[in-house]
C-alpha cells in the first residue's frame, strides 16, 4: 500500500518535505493551525488536517499530532526543523505508536541535545573541541569558583551557555571576572525561563571564527557518509542569513579532515538519518566541534545543489529501513551554491518582522541554477504569529564568481511588495567586495553596517499607483480636497 507520511511542520520546509514525499509516490498529509489556513503547505499536500487555533501550541502538541497520525493511518512523520524536530519525546512517541520518525532515535536526539553529554561523547571520541566545562555546580559559590578557575586557564572572552539551549539562544559572552560573577546568575535564570532547565556550562570564545558545518547522513546499518561542508559565517546575532556550499577555505586537506572528523563524531553518537556537525574555525585554521544538529537544516539546499543528492528523499528512505544507496566515494562536490533566507523583515528597522502584511506582488526569478523553496504567493497575508522566512533562494554556479553573478541577477529580478523583505539588504551584500572575494567570518555583518544603507526600493510608479487607488476608492483626492 502507498505509504502515508505526515509533515509535522509548516512554511517552506513543509512544502519541501511534501515534494519529496510525493516524488516517492507516497501520500503527504499536512497539519495546520488556524492562522495558517491560507498557507501553501495545505494546498500542496494530498490531505490537510486542522489541529487547532494555535498559534504555535498545536504544532508543538505531541499528543494531538500522534492522535491525528493514528486517525489517518500515518506510516511516518517528518518533523522538519524547529517545533518538535529536536524533541526526543516526539521521536519516542512515534516509536511507541508504531510510527516511523524520520530522523534520529530519541536517545540520540536526547544525548546530542544535551550539550554537556554531547561534549562528553565527543571528548571520548577525541574530537577537537573548544575548551569548555561540564555543567557548573548548582551551588553558587562553587560555580563561581569553578568558572573563575576555568577563565584563568583559557583566558577571556568566555561564553556562558544554557545546556538545553540551541539555535543561537541562551548564550552570553563574559569578558572579565566581575562580569562572570554577575552574569552567571542571570544566565541561569534565563535558561530556566527559556528551556525549563537552569543548567549552564562554559566555553572559551573563539574570536571571529568561521562557522563551517558538515552534512552527514547515516543509515541503520552502520554506513555514515558526509556530503561536504557548508559555510554559515554570515550571521546576525547568531542567526544565519546566508549559507554557502562548499566552504571556501582553500586548504582542501583541512576540509577533508573536518569532514572525516564529522563522520567520526556521528559514529561516536550512533547517529542515524541526516544531521549536521557544526565546527568553528579560528584564524589559525584550528577547528573545534560545536554541536550536532539532529534535524534537517534550513540550509540543506546548498548541499543538495553541489552534491546532487536529495537529502529529504534520502532521509525518508533511510527511516523506512533502506540502506544508503551511495558510498562516500560516490559523493562528489561540484560547483558552488549560495542560499539566502528571504525574510519578511525590515533590515533598516532592526530586522523587525513584517508579519500581518499582504504580499501584493510576487514575481520570482528563474532560469538556470536557481532554486526556490518558499511558501508565499501573491495575495498571501503573512501570519503574524510565526517566523518571518518567506522563501529560500538557492543559486548554483560552476565557479564562485558565476554563482555570485547569478545571485545578483536573481535578487534584482525578485519582486515582492507588501511586506518589506531582506532582498534589498542582500543586494547590498552581493555587491560588497569582501563578500564577493569569499573571505568572511562571523564578524562580517558587524563590520559592514553600510549594508543597511540603501534606499527603499518601492518604485515611483507603485507610490503613484497607491495614490491613484485612493483617489479611485474615495471618489476624490483626499489630499487635494
Amino acid at each position: 500500500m502507498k505509504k502515508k507520511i505526515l509533515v509535522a511542520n509548516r512554511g517552506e520546509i513543509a512544502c519541501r518535505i511534501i515534494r519529496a514525499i510525493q516524488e516517492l509516490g507516497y501520500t503527504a498529509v499536512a497539519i495546520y493551525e488556524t492562522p495558517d489556513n491560507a498557507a501553501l503547505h495545505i494546498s500542496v499536500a494530498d490531505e490537510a488536517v486542522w489541529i487547532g487555533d494555535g498559534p504555535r501550541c498545536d504544532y508543538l502538541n505531541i499528543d494531538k499530532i500522534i492522535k491525528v497520525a493514528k486517525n489517518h493511518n500515518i506510516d511516518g512523520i517528518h518533523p522538519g526543523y524547529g517545533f518538535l524536530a529536536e524533541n526526543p519525546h516526539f521521536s519516542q512517541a512515534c516509536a511507541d505508536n508504531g510510527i516511523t520518525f524520520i530522523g534520529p532515535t530519541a536517545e540520540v536526539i536526547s544525548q546530542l541535545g544535551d550539550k554537556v553529554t554531547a561534549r562528553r561523547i565527543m571528548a571520548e571520541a577525541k574530537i577537537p573541541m573548544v575548551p569548555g566545562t561540564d555543567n557548573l555546580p548548582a551551588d553558587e559559590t562553587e560555580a563561581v569558583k569553578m568558572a573563575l578557575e576555568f577563565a584563568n586557564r583559557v583566558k577571556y572572552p568566555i561564553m556562558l551557555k544554557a545546556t538545553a539551549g540551541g539555535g543561537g539562544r541562551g548564550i552570553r559572552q563574559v569578558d572579565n571576572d566581575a562580569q562572570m560573577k554577575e552574569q552567571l546568575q542571570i544566565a541561569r535564570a534565563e535558561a530556566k525561563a527559556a528551556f525549563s532547565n537552569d543548567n549552564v556550562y562554559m566555553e572559551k570564545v573563539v574570536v571571529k571564527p568561521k562557522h563551517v558545518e558538515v552534512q552527514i547522513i547515516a543509515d541503520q546499518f552502520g554506513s555514515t557518509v558526509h556530503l561536504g561542508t557548508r559555510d554559515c559565517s554570515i550571521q546576525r546575532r547568531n542567526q544565519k542569513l546566508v549559507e554557502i556550499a562548499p566552504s571556501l577555505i582553500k586548504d582542501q586537506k583541512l576540509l577533508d579532515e573536518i569532514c572525516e572528523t564529522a563522520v567520526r563524531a556521528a559514529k561516536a553518537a550512533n547517529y542515524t538519518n541526516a544531521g549536521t556537525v557544526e565546527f568553528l574555525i579560528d584564524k589559525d585554521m584550528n577547528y573545534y566541534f560545536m554541536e550536532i544538529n539532529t534535524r534537517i537544516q534550513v540550509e540543506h539546499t546548498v548541499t543538495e545543489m553541489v552534491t546532487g543528492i536529495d537529502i529529504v528523499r534520502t532521509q525518508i528512505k533511510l527511516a523506512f529501513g533502506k540502506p544508503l544507496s551511495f558510498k562516500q566515494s560516490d559523493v562528489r562536490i561540484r560547483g558552488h551554491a549560495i542560499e539566502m533566507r528571504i525574510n519578511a523583515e525590515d533590515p533598516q528597522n532592526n530586522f523587525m518582522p513584517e508579519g500581518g502584511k499582504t504580499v501584493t506582488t510576487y514575481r520570482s526569478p528563474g532560469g538556470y541554477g536557481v532554486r526556490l523553496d518558499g511558501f508565499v504567493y501573491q495575495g498571501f497575508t503573512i501570519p503574524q504569529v510565526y517566523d518571518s522566512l518567506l522563501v529560500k533562494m538557492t543559486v548554483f554556479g560552476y565557479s564562485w564568481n558565476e554563482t555570485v553573478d547569478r545571485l545578483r541577477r536573481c535578487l534584482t529580478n525578485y519582486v515582492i511588495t507588501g511586506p518589506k523583505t531582506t532582498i534589498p539588504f542582500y543586494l547590498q551584500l552581493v555587491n560588497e567586495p569582501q563578500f564577493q572575494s569569499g573571505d568572511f567570518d562571523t564578524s562580517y555583518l558587524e563590520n559592514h553596517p553600510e549594508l543597511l544603507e540603501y534606499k527603499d526600493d518601492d518604485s515611483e510608479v507603485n507610490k503613484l499607483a497607491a495614490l491613484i487607488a485612493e483617489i479611485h476608492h474615495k471618489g476624490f483626492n483626499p489630499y487635494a480636497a
Partner: protein
Amino acid sequence: MNRIVQGMNIKDLLKTVREADGYYITNTARDMSQSDYKNRILLHTDLMAAKEREKAGYFSLEITGGASVHVDILRKQVDPFLKLKLLREAMPNTMFQTLCRGVNLFGYRPYPQNVIRFTVKEFAKYVDVWRVFDFMNYIPNMKAVFEEVQAAGKILEPCICFSTGPEHTDDFYVKKVGEILDVTGEDIVLCIKNHGGLGTPKRIGDLVSSIKNKYPDLVLHYHGHNTDGNDIGRITEAVLHGANIVDASDHSFTGFYGPPPVLTVMQTLEGYGHKAVTVDAEAVIATSDAIRDQRPHYDIFESQFRGFLPTVQIHKLPGGAMGSSLEQAEKGGFLDKMPDILHKELPLVQKELGNYWSVTPGSQILWTTAVSNVQGGERYGNVSGDLRNLLLGKYGPFPFYKPAEWIYEKVLGADWQKVLEEEGGIEDIEDMDIDKERKTLTDRIRRKPTEQELVLYLQHPNDAVEFFKFEAKFGKVYVLPPSIFLKRGGFELGEDITFTDHKGKGHLISIGPAQMNEEGETTIYLTVDHHNRRYIMAAEQKAGVAAAQSEIGKEEIEELAAVGDVRAPFMANVCEIAVEVGQEVAEGDKLVVVEAMKMQTPVLAKIGGVVESVTTKVGDAVKPGAKLVKIKTGNEEKEGK
C-alpha cells in the same frame, strides 16, 4: 526688441522699460489660480503652458507667493521650490514673480526677522521680481524683505495698496510712494496694488497721473482684478497715463475675480495706439489653446457664484479672497446671507475699523468679523484673536483713524485703555532658533532636511511635515494631470491611465475591480505597468458617528462652557492647546486656540477650576460643539464631597 529677460540687472531693466515705446505685461497665472480656482491650478498645467508662455515675451510670470506656497504643500502636494526649479528649466528667459506679504511673508501672521530673511534668501534663488505689500501700507513691516531682495540682486517691487473712500486721496498715495522711495532708493518698480479691482478707470488714471507727475522716472506696475468686469478699463487708463507694466493672464482660464485676458488688454490698448512691446500675440493665443482642455478638471474649484460682482465696489473684498470666502459661506451654510454680509455688514465693519486696505491678512479680519457679526447675533460679540491684535496695533498703526471707543471696549473689555497701554503696539518678535528647528524637523521626518524644506517647515510646521510624509509615501505627484489628481467619482472599470513620472518614464495603470470584505476593507485591483497589484483601503468610518458627536447649538455650547465643558465654537482647526491636565485656570484664561479661515480665535475659560481633561490635539479639525477641554470647578468638588 526690448525684451526683459531673467538675470538683467535692475538699472538696465528699468532703463529698457522707461525707453520702450509701449507697455509691458505680467502674466499673473498665480493670481488667476488663487482668485478663480482657489489656488488649485496644478504645476502640471503650468508646465503645459510653459513653452508658449516663455515665447510670449512677458515682463514676468507671477507664479508663486500669496497663498500659493501654502496651498502647494497643503492641497497640491508639490514642493514650491521644486515647482520653480522645473518651471525655470522649461522657461529659461522669463522672469518669475512672487507676491510677498512683507512681515507676514506667504502666511497670515508676522514672522521673526531671521525667518523672513532666511525665507527670502532661499526663494530669491528662483524668484526675480518681488512684489511686496503690507495691508496697512506700513513700510516698516516690509523693510526686512526689501533689504533681502536688494541684497540678493533681485527686482524689488514695493506696493502701495489701493482702496477707495474719502481718505484714499492722490495726495495720500503720492506721499506713501515718497516714503517707500526713501527706504528703497530709486531703483525699484512701484506697484499700484488694486487687489479689489476698485475705483473707476478715471480714478486709476488720475492716481497714475499724480504719481507720475511727482516721480516721472518711476517705473509703475498696475495690478488689478476683474471682479466688476471692468479691469480692462482701469488698465487702459493706467497705461494712457503712464503706467509701464500691467497684469493679465491667459484667456482660456480667465474667470471673474482674477486678472482679465492678456489678449483683450492688447487689443483694447492697440486702439489707443499703445503696444505691448515684447508680447507675441500668437504665443498668447497658443498658450490658451494648449491648456484649454484642462479647465473642466478644475470646475469644482471655480466660484460658487458665477458672474462678475460689480458690488465689489461696496464690499471691497480682494479678488484673491472671493473664492475662499464664498466656499466658506457654502460650507458654513450661509450662502443665502451673503447679500447681507457683503453689501451691508462688510462695508460697515470696513468703516468702523478704519477703512484700511482689505487684503491679506486684513481682509480676513474684516470678513470673519462681518460674518460673526451677522451669524452670531451680537455685533463684535465673538472676537477673533486677530481682530484683537489689530486693535492692539500689532499689525501697525491705523492709517487714517482709529475705530470708535465702543469697539475697543467690546473687543478688549471694560479696561480696554489699560490693556491697550500695556499690550499695544508692534511687538518685536524674537528670532527663532533655526538650528533647533532643523533638529526638530530632522527628528520628525527621520532624515536631514534640505534648507528649502526647512524654510517650508518654518512657514507651516505641521503642514510641511505632512507634505514630506506624503511625498515619501506617494512620490512626486505633480506628474499627474488634473484629470487624475483631481478626479471625482472614481475611474471606470478597465480605464487605462497613462502618465510620465518625474524621471521621464512612461507608465500605464489599468483600473481593475474593487472588492469589499466583511470588515469593510476594500481591495482595489490595479494593473501597474502590466503587473497586478492590490491596494487595501481601510474601512470608512461609519457615517453618522462623526455627525452625532457635534452639531449642537451656540447657546448650548455657551451653557456647557459655563459649567466647564468647553466645546468648539465653530468649525475650525485646533492650532494651540494652552493648558494641560491638572492645571489651574481662572475665568478668561486661554484654553485652546482654534483657527478658521486662517484667523485664530482663542477659546477662553468661562469658569475657573482645574483642567480635568483635554480631548483634542493640535491639528484636529473640529465641528461646532466638539469637546475640547473639561474644567472641574471648585463647587463641583465640594458638592461631590
